C-alpha cells in the first residue's frame, strides 16, 4: 500500500470486523512539530494484552485469528522507518484505539493519498456504523460527524446519486476549511 489513507481504510476495516458501532478517525498534521498523526478508535469487542502484542508483530502472529493479517505490521514498519511509532491500546469488551505517528517531512513518509475518498467510502458502505472524522492542522480542527446526516436522511439510503455527492462535498469541506492547501500528495510543504 502506497498511501497513508489506504492504511487508514485497512485499520478502519479491523474496527468494523470487531463489531464496532462507533468509529472515530483523527488525522492531525503539525508543521511546527513536524508530525503527522492518525488514530482510529472504536467501541468494538477489543483485545487482550496478549493479542495486542501479537497483532503488531508479524513474526509472532499464529494466523489462527484470520481477522488479523499483515496490515498492522506493515503500517508499524512504515511509521518506525519515519522516526515514528504505532501504538495500540485495547480492552476486551470496551474497544480499541490505534495511534500512528510519522515525522511529517521524513523522506520515506508515504503520501496522504485520497483521504476524502477513503472517509467517503467508509461512511457510505457501512451505514450502521456511526462515523466521526476529525482533521487537525496545526492549532485548527474540523469535525465531520455522520449522525446529523443520518438524522436528516431517515430511511433514504446514502447511495442515492445526489446524496453521495453531497456527503463527499461535506467531507472535503471539513478538510479544506482547516487547510485550504490540502492536497493528496503534499509532503514537503512548509508553513
Amino acid at each position, binding site marked *: *500500500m502506497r498511501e497513508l489513507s*489506504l492504511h487508514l481504510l485497512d485499520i478502519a476495516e479491523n474496527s468494523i470486523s470487531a463489531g464496532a458501532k462507533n468509529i472515530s478517525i483523527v488525522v492531525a498534521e503539525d508543521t511546527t512539530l513536524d508530525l503527522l498523526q492518525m488514530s482510529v478508535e472504536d467501541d468494538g469487542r477489543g483485545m487482550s494484552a496478549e493479542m495486542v502484542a501479537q497483532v503488531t508483530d508479524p513474526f509472532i502472529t499464529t494466523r489462527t485469528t484470520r481477522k488479523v493479517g499483515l496490515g498492522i505490521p506493515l503500517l508499524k514498519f512504515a511509521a518506525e522507518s519515519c522516526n515514528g511509532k504505532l501504538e495500540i491500546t485495547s480492552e476486551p469488551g470496551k474497544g480499541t484505539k490505534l495511534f500512528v505517528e510519522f515525522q511529517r517531512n521524513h523522506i520515506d513518509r508515504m503520501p496522504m493519498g485520497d483521504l476524502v475518498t477513503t472517509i467517503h467510502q467508509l461512511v457510505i458502505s457501512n451505514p450502521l456504523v456511526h462515523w466521526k472524522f476529525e482533521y487537525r492542522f496545526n492549532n485548527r480542527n474540523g469535525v465531520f460527524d455522520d449522525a446529523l446526516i443520518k438524522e436528516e436522511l431517515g430511511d433514504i439510503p446514502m447511495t442515492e446519486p445526489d446524496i*453521495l455527492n453531497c456527503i463527499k*462535498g461535506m467531507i472535503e469541506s471539513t478538510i479544506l476549511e482547516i487547510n485550504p492547501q490540502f492536497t493528496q500528495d503534499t509532503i514537503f510543504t512548509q508553513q
Partner: protein
Amino acid sequence: MSTIKSLEDLKKARDEALKKRELKATSGAIQVIVGMGTCGIAAGARDTMKAILETIEQDSISGVIVTQTGCIGLCEKEPIVEVIVGEQPKVIYGKVSPELARKIMKEHVVDGKVVTSNVIQM
C-alpha cells in the same frame, strides 16, 4: 476542488431523492458489495468502489445499496465485487478494475445483463 457543502445542501438533496422515489415504482433493491479486506485494498478495491460510486453519481442510478465486506478467502481474485439484484442469486465478479466496475454498473445493475467474462464460479 468543489464548493463548500453543508447540511443545508444535504437537506435539498434529500428532498430531491424523496421526490424521485415517489415517481419511481419500486423495482426491487440492488445490492453491490465490495471486498475491503487488506487483500482487497492492496489489490485496488478503493479505486473500484470509487468507480462504482462515481458511476451512480454520473448516471444518476437510483435504488442501489453499496456496502463492503472483509476478506472472503479469495484474495488472489481481489478486487471482488458481488451484485445481488432483487431475488436473483448473487453474482461474484473477480479482478474488478475501475473500468470493469463501470461496465458492471451499466450492464448488470442498470440493464440486468451479467458481465460473464469476470464471473467467479463458486
